[in-house]
């Protein structure tokens, strides 16, 4: 009897310990699916015999066996009330399948076409590809629903109709058109190509654990699928920029009534404007030697109708030495330096946007003392009254939620997004880690006594938009060493606090890049709020500057 009790206890313990593993496994499977079937866009650049060459390679995480639809972009679908562009009526001309991947390009074979494919045709990975779900477990309908949500760009056949046409054992049915076959068995999930070649497989995950994983509700218009470099459509990207951005701002910097963009790097600030989809560079301001920027925010402190740009920076000696950069007489210049505070613009309920600051401490303390408002008295920046924030937050890691409850969204040092009261009580946390920032300060406090300097990474930007959604980047990627941190995958997530849990509302399409900063602003002066992101691409070459870019997305 005693042995049975012990066995039961051990079994219960193992099950208890396995729960997080099963949940983690399900998340890993869904993560792998999302990665393997993530949208990617490009063009046919050449024909090579009976094959085609496309302008995508492994950098976009494409793999041999991937299927691309070849499309003719059609008319835009415009919402009659909001005028938002919801998508476009693309026409599918045919399908290609990757046969080989080279550096900078890949080979494809044509697997079907209605009309002749040619150089310059746009291609979209897995978009509009028919997908069948064959459930050999008899219990996979809930998982089918998850798959539909996870991979909305596939053209899914209904669950019932797919089961109706499902062969007794998984074999290629006769007379089928181009399709992907998702085959769920007790062994796991397989994905097979139209000619029934295995292209991906995933291990079995307990159904209960799988259904416990809550997937983000992806709103169709928030998932930007088309890449249109001319500035027309849902997505726009800038020409390549050099370096890793540390901050991004959008605002009217010169008082002309139009919005400009500012991207800060460690050593400089670049100002530009989007005009009819083209990128116009307006100026570059270098911070000077021995000074490294780590944060950027804009605020009209002078109340002159122009946003001044506040760059938080640190000298080689480890002193904060921020800058103000503004447009004067048609040029951008540093109008103030040696500001010994970390600086940030934040929106406070009841106050709107305010400029706040925090000092640096002694003996290796990155932040010290209360957060306070920054005031302009004459031409001097002075310390204003402190603001009430939860204990232990620092200048950069929180945002105030609207409402009278005085709640804050705060990125904890452990990487989770928390909802915190002003007294510091944590009411809820995100399921997954969020944030991730490559912007850092080199702490040299231990060097003088014979220790080493170390890189202290700043929290990622946390913002709350007008709808009360908490918006935060999610950067991920394998980087263990503190001096070699380089994120390789990113997305932007919007969460809401419903009083009990933090829920995903929408997220951007995951990208193979590091999301350095973001803004929600009318970046192209068309009256609509856009999502603007500054991203940097993975690059392990230490001798060349890292490549980065601005991306602009149209929001729902």
């Amino acid at each position: 009897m005693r042995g049975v009790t012990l066995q039961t206890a051990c079994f219960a313990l193992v099950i208890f310990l396995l729960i997080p593993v099963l949940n983690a496994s399900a998340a890993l499977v869904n993560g792998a699916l999302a990665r393997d079937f993530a949208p990617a866009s490009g063009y046919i650049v050449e024909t090579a015999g009976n094959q085609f060459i496309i302008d995508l390679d492994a950098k976009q995480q494409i793999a041999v066996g991937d299927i691309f639809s070849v499309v003719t972009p059609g008319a835009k679908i415009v919402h009659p009330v909001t005028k938002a562009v919801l998508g476009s009526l693309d026409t599918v001309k045919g399908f290609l399948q990757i046969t080989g991947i080279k550096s900078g390009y890949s080979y494809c074979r044509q697997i079907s076409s209605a009309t002749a494919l040619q150089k310059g045709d746009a291609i979209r990975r897995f978009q509009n590809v028919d997908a069948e779900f064959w459930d050999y477990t008899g219990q996979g309908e809930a998982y089918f629903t998850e798959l539909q949500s996870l991979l909305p760009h596939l053209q899914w056949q209904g669950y019932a109709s797919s089961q109706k046409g499902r062969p007794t054992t998984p074999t290629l049915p006769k007379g089928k058109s181009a399709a992907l076959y998702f085959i769920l068995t007790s062994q796991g999930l397989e994905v097979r190509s139209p000619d029934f070649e295995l292209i991906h497989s995933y291990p079995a995950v307990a159904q209960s654990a799988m259904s416990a994983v809550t997937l983000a509700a992806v709103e169709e218009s928030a998932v930007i699928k088309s890449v249109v470099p001319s500035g027309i459509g849902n997505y726009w990207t800038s020409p390549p920029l050099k370096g890793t951005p540390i901050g991004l701002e959008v605002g009217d910097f010169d008082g002309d009534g139009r919005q400009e963009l500012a991207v800060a790097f460690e050593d400089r600030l670049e100002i530009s404007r989007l005009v009819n989809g083209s990128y116009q560079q307006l100026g570059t301001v270098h911070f000077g030697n021995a000074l490294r920027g780590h944060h950027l925010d804009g605020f009209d402190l002078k109340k002159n109708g122009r946003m001044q740009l506040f760059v938080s920076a640190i000298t080689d000696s480890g002193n904060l030495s921020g800058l103000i950069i503004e447009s004067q007489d048609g040029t951008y210049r540093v109008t103030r330096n040696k500001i010994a505070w970390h600086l940030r613009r934040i929106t406070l309920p009841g106050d709107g946007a305010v400029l706040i600051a925090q000092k640096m401490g002694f003996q290796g303390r990155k932040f010290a003392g209360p957060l306070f408002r920054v005031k302009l008295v004459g031409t001097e920046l002075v310390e204003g009254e402190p603001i009430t924030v939860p204990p232990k937050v620092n200048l950069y890691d929180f945002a105030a939620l609207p409402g009278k409850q005085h709640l804050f969204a705060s990125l904890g040092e452990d990487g989770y997004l928390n909802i915190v009261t002003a007294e510091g009580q944590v009411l809820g946390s995100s399921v997954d880690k969020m944030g991730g920032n490559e912007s850092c300060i080199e702490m040299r406090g231990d060097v003088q006594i014979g220790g080493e300097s170390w890189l202290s990474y700043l929290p990622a930007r946390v913002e709350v938009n007008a709808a009360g959604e908490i918006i935060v980047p999610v950067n991920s990627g394998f980087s263990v060493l503190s001096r070699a941190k380089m994120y390789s995958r990113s997305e932007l997530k919007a969460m809401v606090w419903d009083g009990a849990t933090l829920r995903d509302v929408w997220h951007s399409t995951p990208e193979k890049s590091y999301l350095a900063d973001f803004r929600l602003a009318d970046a192209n002066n068309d009256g609509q709020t856009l999502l603007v992101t500054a991203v940097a691409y993975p690059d392990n070459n230490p001798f060349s500057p890292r490549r980065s870019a601005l991306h602009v997305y149209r929001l729902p």
Partner: protein
Amino acid sequence: MKRSIIGAVVLGATVALAVPAMALDVTPYGTIRIGTWYTSNTHYDPATGASQKDSDFSLDLQGDSFVGMRVKEGDFSGLAELGAYNPKNRGAGVELRMLFGDWNFGEGKLRFGYLPSAYVFRSEQVFDADGGFNAYGSLFDGRYAQIKVSMNNGFYLALMKTSTGGFGTNSTSNSTGGWKAGGVFNNTATNYATTSVDYDTFIPKTVAGYEGASGFVKYGGGVAGNYYKVTDTTVTNLSADITSLMGYAHATIDLNPVELKFHLYGGQNLGDLMSNGAATTGSYYSGKKNSYTYGGFGQVGYTASDKVKVYTGVSYETSKNDNYIKDDNKMAAFANLQYSVTKNVKIVPEVSLLNDLDSSTGAKESRIYAGGVKWEMKF
């Protein structure tokens, strides 16, 4: 049995996979440093005073090469570093460089561990394994167990392992001389040594100071004290209470892109305070007389670009004692260029001089001219 092993592996894997859910933040890091130097040394024969010269090339791993790890969970954090000893002590194997834990209690930090003394303030000199004017105008004296409280307002207090002038050793061998003949009795000493010197220690070495800033000047200073009693049973009447007291101050003036650095110190029996052989010979209590040592350095740095910094500095130290025929003086100087090849790789060409000038007996002492490069890779 096999089932048990499988079960253990499954449970182990389960726990391992569950670990990422914890809030523990672990960051490995490290630095590898190689020195390549041409040195020209001049020595003086102690008997005749005749000069002897020797020039050599050397390539070796610097003693400040190491791998380490930072861990953090909530208000608690820790650090551990393991590295190489300097070439002169390479046979000692792997060195524990630092090991400490911090508790951030809100108003300040409490640190337990093994780390350098709080009064250390180094220059950018890289010769002699990032010597930083060590023993020539800087106070680096190794790493010691200590309990340190540093407040957010800049004040700190450290209680450290008591120094016995660099000669105290663990007592781990059998003794025939009884308690009087023991060395320093430490936490793990269970036997007595067969030495003839008895060290008696009563209180920890204590360092109290302040680190602050005003505008673009960072400054700091403090006092340090140490006391022990030594008795040598082989020397008639050699019994002494040795009290060490020191005051120190330093400043860094950030005139971006120029940086100025100063360090000054002075006090009584600094050799006995500093616990290791890096201290100047003349700075020890000697001949039943206190020694008085004063020293410091000045350094100028300039950041020429985001990849290039140049530094130059000079240091001086003098030790006085009523028994000395002449003050024991030392000086050093250097100039280097720090070139960051990439974010992780730096090379530092440098010319350096270490000059021991004169000894307390009035004899000339050796000097070293060095030219070479430090090769550094951080990760």
